[in-house]
C-alpha cells in the first residue's frame, strides 16, 4: 500500500485558539509537533466577537500569559481598542478587554507559529484517531496518510459535523463557510467516547458605510492602556484607538421578532443542540425577558482594513428577510447593509467528564483535548485548555509531572475542574462568580500565582521567574514597612487628608491603616513617606491591594487551607468503588464514572454526599496503612 507515513511526537488537531496554544507549548518544550487545520488561512480565527478578554476571560488571558502561553502577547500586538472593565469595583473583578483587528490577530499568530522551531503546519482533515490497547498511536487524514505520534491533542472547536442555520436554510459547514470535519466523530465514538451536540450563534456583520453613527453613543478605549502580557512593555501599547458604538433595540424590533418567531429554527425544532444561556440570541432575550422594552446593541469594528462591523447583542438564527427588518429597526441601522448573516451553529463535542483534570482522556492514554470540543465556549476558555492540554501531552512524553491547577490557584483551575467534574449541558463560559476564591485569583497577580508553575514546566524563562521572585520579596517587605511607618496629627498630614476628604487625625497612625481607608491609596500617601523606595508600578499596586484588603484576603486564605486538605488526598486511578462497602449506591456509580483524582474532586461530584467523603477518607487511610 502506498501512502504517506510520518513520525512526530505530538499531533494537534485544529488550529484555533486551543490548537495554537497546544501546538506552541509542545514545540517550545522541544517536541516534534504537527498541527492540522482544514484551512491554513483560518489559523486563530475569531469567527464570533472581535475581542479578547472581558470579565473573568481577561483573567484567563493573564494566566495563560503567566504560564508562558501566546494569547496575551498576540492581542497586545494586534488590538485596536482596550478597556479595563469594573474599575470602580474591587481589584478582584477588574478585567481587561481589547478589541482585536481580527485579520491582524490571525496573521500575527500564524507568523509566530510558522517561526517556531519543531512545529509543522499541515492543511488536512483528520478523519481518524488511531489507538492500540487504550493508548493513542497517531492520526489518519482524509487522504489516508498516517501520522504516528506519542500523543494527540484534539482541538476541533465547532467543526465536528458542524451545521450553520438561519431560518429554514442550513449548510453543513463550519463557521464562516469553512469546511466541516464530518468523519472524526465516528472514529471517536468507536473509541468509546461519549459525544454531545451543542449550539451557539453569532450576529450579523454590517457594512460600516451603511451605519449612521450620529444616532449612537461613542464608546472609547481607556486613556492609559494596560497590556495583557506581563512581558509587554506598557509603553508599546499606547496607540491611537478606534471607537465602538452603543445603540438600543426598541419595541418595534421586538415586535418584528415576535411576529416571526414561528420561522425561527429554534422554535420549529430544526436545531437540536443545546445553546448557552449566557449568550442568548436576540429572539431568546425578547421571549425570556418580555418586560424589557429595549436591549443594548454594541457596534464593534472587526478590524482596521475592513468595513465590517460586528453587531454585539443581536445574535440570531431568524431568516434573512427578518434579520434585515430587525436590524434596520435599530436607530443608526435604518439603512444597514448586511455583509454576513447572523446564524446559529451546531456541532459535536464531548462530555468532558471523560477527561482527567490534566485534560487527558481517562480511557485512552496519550489522547488529550481542549477548547470548544470539551464543551466550553469562548476564545479565552479554549486557549487556556489548549495550553494545559499541550503542556500535559508534553509532560507525559517527557516523563515529567503533569500540571493540574486547582480552584484556589487559577481561573484555569476552576474552568477545568468545572468541566471535568460537573454535569454540563450547555457551552461553558467562565464567570467570576464561579471562582470561590476570586479575591486571591486577581488578574493583577497572575504572574505571582503562576510564573513558578510555568517555569517548572519549561515555558517561562529563568529571567522572568527571577523577576517574580524579586517582586514577591519586595511586596512583602514594603507591606510590612507600611505597618511600621507612623504619621502624627501634623499640618502636612491633615492637609493631605483634607484634600482627599478623609477624616483628620487625632492621634498617630500607621500608613497601613491610612491605606485601609477607602478614599486613600498607597500612592496618594507618597508625600508623607519620606523613606519610600522607588518601586515599579506593578509592585506598588500589589502593596496597595495587599494592605487594603488584607482582612478579606486572610479569610480566603484560611478557606483555601481547608480546601487544600481534601485536594491533596489523591485517589488511585484503578480504585474500584464497588469494593468500598459503606458508600451509597449512587456514590459508587458516580465515582466509578467520574474517577476523581482526589477526594476534593470527589466531594464536588453531584450525588456524592459528605458521609460518602468520610467513608472515602477512612477507606483511603486503611488502604494507605495496608501498603
Amino acid at each position, binding site marked *: 500500500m502506498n501512502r504517506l507515513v510520518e513520525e512526530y511526537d505530538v499531533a494537534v488537531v485544529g488550529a484555533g485558539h486551543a490548537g495554537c496554544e497546544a501546538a506552541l507549548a509542545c514545540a517550545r518544550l522541544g517536541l516534534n509537533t504537527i498541527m492540522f487545520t482544514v484551512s491554513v488561512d483560518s489559523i486563530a480565527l475569531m469567527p464570533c466577537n472581535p475581542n479578547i478578554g472581558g470579565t473573568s476571560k481577561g483573567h484567563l488571558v493573564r494566566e495563560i500569559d503567566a504560564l508562558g502561553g501566546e494569547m496575551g502577547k498576540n492581542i497586545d500586538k494586534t488590538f485596536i481598542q482596550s478597556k479595563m472593565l*469594573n474599575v470602580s*469595583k474591587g481589584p478582584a473583578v477588574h478585567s481587561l478587554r481589547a478589541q482585536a483587528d481580527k485579520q491582524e490577530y490571525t496573521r500575527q499568530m500564524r507568523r509566530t507559529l510558522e517561526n517556531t522551531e519543531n512545529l509543522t503546519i499541515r492543511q488536512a482533515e483528520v478523519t481518524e484517531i488511531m489507538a492500540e490497547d487504550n493508548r493513542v498511536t497517531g492520526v489518519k487524514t482524509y487522504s489516508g496518510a498516517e501520522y504516528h505520534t506519542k500523543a494527540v491533542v484534539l482541538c476541533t472547536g465547532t467543526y465536528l459535523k458542524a451545521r450553520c442555520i438561519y431560518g429554514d436554510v442550513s449548510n453543513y459547514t463550519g463557521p464562516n463557510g469553512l469546511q466541516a470535519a464530518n468523519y472524526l466523530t465516528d472514529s471517536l465514538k468507536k473509541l468509546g467516547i461519549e459525544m454531545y451536540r451543542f449550539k451557539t450563534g453569532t450576529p450579523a456583520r454590517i457594512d460600516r458605510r451603511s451605519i449612521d453613527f450620529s444616532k449612537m453613543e461613542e464608546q472609547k478605549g481607556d486613556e492609559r492602556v494596560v497590556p495583557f502580557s506581563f512581558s509587554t512593555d506598557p509603553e508599546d501599547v499606547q496607540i491611537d484607538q478606534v471607537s465602538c458604538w452603543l445603540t438600543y433595540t426598541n419595541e418595534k424590533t421586538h415586535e418584528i421578532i415576535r411576529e416571526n418567531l414561528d420561522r425561527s429554527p429554534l422554535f420549529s425544532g430544526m436545531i437540536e443542540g443545546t445553546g*448557552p444561556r449566557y449568550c442568548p440570541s436576540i429572539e431568546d432575550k425578547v421571549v425570556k425577558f418580555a418586560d424589557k422594552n429595549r436591549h*443594548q446593541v454594541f457596534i464593534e469594528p472587526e478590524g482596521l482594513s475592513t468595513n465590517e462591523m460586528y453587531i454585539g447583542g443581536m445574535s440570531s438564527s431568524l431568516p434573512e428577510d427578518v434579520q434585515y427588518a430587525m436590524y434596520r429597526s435599530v436607530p443608526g441601522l435604518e439603512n444597514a447593509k448586511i455583509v454576513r448573516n447572523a446564524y446559529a451553529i451546531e456541532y459535536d463535542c464531548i462530555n468532558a467528564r471523560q477527561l482527567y483534570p490534566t485534560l487527558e482522556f481517562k480511557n485512552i492514554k496519550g489522547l488529550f483535548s481542549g477548547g470548544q470540543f470539551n464543551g466550553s465556549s469562548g476564545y479565552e476558555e479554549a486557549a487556556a485548555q489548549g495550553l494545559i492540554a499541550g503542556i500535559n501531552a508534553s509532560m507525559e512524553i517527557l516523563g515529567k509531572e503533569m500540571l493540574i491547577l486547582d480552584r484556589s490557584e487559577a481561573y484555569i483551575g476552576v474552568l477545568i475542574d468545572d468541566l471535568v467534574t460537573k454535569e454540563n449541558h450547555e457551552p461553558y463560559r467562565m464567570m467570576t462568580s464561579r471562582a*470561590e476564591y476570586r479575591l486571591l485569583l486577581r488578574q493583577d497577580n497572575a504572574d505571582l500565582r503562576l510564573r513558578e508553575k510555568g517555569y517548572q514546566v519549561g515555558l517561562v524563562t529563568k529571567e522572568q521567574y527571577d523577576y517574580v521572585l524579586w517582586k514577591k520579596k519586595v511586596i512583602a517587605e514594603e507591606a510590612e514597612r507600611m505597618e511600621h511607618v507612623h504619621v502624627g496629627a501634623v499640618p502636612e498630614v491633615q492637609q493631605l487628608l483634607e484634600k482627599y476628604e478623609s477624616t483628620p487625625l487625632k492621634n498617630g497612625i500607621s500608613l497601613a491603616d491610612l491605606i485601609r481607608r477607602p478614599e486613600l491609596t498607597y500612592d496618594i500617601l507618597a508625600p508623607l513617606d519620606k523613606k519610600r523606595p522607588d518601586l515599579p508600578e506593578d509592585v506598588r499596586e500589589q502593596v496597595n491591594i495587599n494592605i487594603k484588603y488584607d482582612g478579606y484576603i486572610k479569610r480566603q486564605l484560611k478557606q483555601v487551607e481547608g480546601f487544600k486538605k481534601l485536594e491533596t488526598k489523591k485517589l488511585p486511578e484503578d480504585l474500584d468503588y464497588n469494593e468500598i462497602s459503606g458508600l451509597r449506591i449512587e456514590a459508587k456509580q458516580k465515582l466509578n464514572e467520574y474517577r476523581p483524582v482526589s477526594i476534593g474532586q470527589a466531594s464536588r461530584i453531584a450525588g456524592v454526599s459528605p*458521609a460518602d467523603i468520610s467513608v472515602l477518607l477512612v477507606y483511603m487511610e486503611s488502604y494507605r*496503612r495496608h501498603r
Partner: protein
Amino acid sequence: MADTIAAAATAMTASGIGIIRMSGPDSRKIAGKIYRSKGGKKKIEEVSTHTIHYGFICDGDEVIDEVLVMVMDGPRSYTGEDTVEIDCHGGVLAMKRVLETVIKYGARPAEPGEFTKRAFLNGRIDLSQAEAVIDIINAKNEYALKSSVSQLRGNIQRAVKNIREGIIYQIAFIESALDDPEHISIDGYGETLKEEVKKQKKAVQKLLDTVREGKLLKEGIKTVIVGKPNAGKSSLLNLLVGEERAIVTEIAGTTRDILEETIVLSGISLRMIDTAGIRNTEDVVEKIGVGKAIEHAKDADLVLYVVDSSVPLDENDEEIIQLVKEKKAVVILNKTDLDQVVFEQELREKTGQPVVPISAKEEQGIDDLEQQIKDMFFDGELSFNDEIYITNLRHKTALEEAKKSLELVEDSIEMQMPEDFYSIDLMNAYEALGSIIGEAVGEDLVNEIFSKFCTGK
C-alpha cells in the same frame, strides 16, 4: 484537622454523670475560657497532660455545673488529637448546658461519627476496625439526615428557604452586574442592599429565637400510640396531654391525621404521635393514616400499644403484636371499666412487654403508666435522642454563622467596600442556611443569574 469539635460522649440519660468531649487544637483554649477552679487560680492551658481537675464550668459569671476536667494532649488520646473531657452531672439538662457552653466558646458540634473518624484517621483505631468505623459513620449519618430533614418543622423549612431565596437573588444581581458591567449597573447599590440584609438578618434572628426555645427540631423520645380503631388511643393521648387535641368519638376510624404533642413526665420529654387506628380498610384517607402509623411505629423509640379489653383480639392485633415484640413498648389494657374479654397475663405472654391496665374514661391507671415509663428511662432502656439534639445544635451554629456573615456584609457596606466584597459574605450566609435544610450550593447562583437577569452579548 484544623477545628475543634464537641459532643456528648455518654448517652444523655438520667445517669449519675455525663461526659462532654472536645477534640482538636483549641480544646485546651476553649476549656480554659470556661473552667474555674475552686481557688480560681488554676489555668487549664497550663496544667500537665493526662491530669484531672476539679472545678466549675462557667459562662462568664454564671456557674453552669460542678465538674471534673480531664486534659489529654495528642497523640495519647482517643482521637489522637488534643482532647478535653468534662465530667458533669448526668441528665439531659446539665449535659446540654455544658455542651452548649463549650460550643458558645468556639467548639463546633461534631458531625455524626466524627470522633471515631478522627480516631481512625489518626491511627488510634486498629485497621481491622475500618469497616466498623465506616458503619458507625453511616449509621449515625443516616439517623442525623433522617432527623434533620424529617424532623424539621415545615414552617422552619419554609422560613429558611425564603431567606435563602432573598439572599441568592441579591448575590445573583451583584454577580450579573460584575459579569456584565455594560448591561447591568450596581453603582450605589449598597443602600438598597443594606435594607435587604437588615430584613434577612431579622428573619435569621427570629429563627435563632426559635432554637433558643428548642423548637427548631422536635426533641424528645419519639413515642407512637398504636392500636386498632376505637381502642382509646386518642383518649389516652388527651389524658396525657391534658387537653382536647385529638377528636374522640365513638365511631371507629375518626382520628385521621397524625397528631403530635410533646409531654414532659418528671423531666423526660415524650414526643407523642397519635396515628389513625391500624386496621385493614378500603377507605383511602384512612389507608394513608394506617401506613403512616406502621411507619412511625417502626422507627419510634417507644411504642404504646392500646388494647380494648372489652373486645376480643383479632388479626389487626396480631399484626400489631408482631411489631410490638421487636420494640421498646408498653401495652395498655384500656376500658377496664367495661366487661373484660382480654386479660393482662395473656398480653404479657404474647408481647413479652409490660402491661398496664387503665381506664381512660375513668382516668384510672394513668399514674401506673407514668411510673412504668419513668422506670424504663431510669433503667436506661429508653434514652434521650442526642442525635436529634446535636443536630439542633448544628442548626443553631449554622444560623449564628449566617447571622455573622450578614453582619459582615453590613460592615463591608459601612466601610464602603466595593460591591464584589458583599457577595462573598452573602454566599457564606447562603451556604450556612443551606446546611440546615440539607441543600448544597451547586449551580444555584449560575442558574439564578441566568433565569433572573438578562446578560450577555
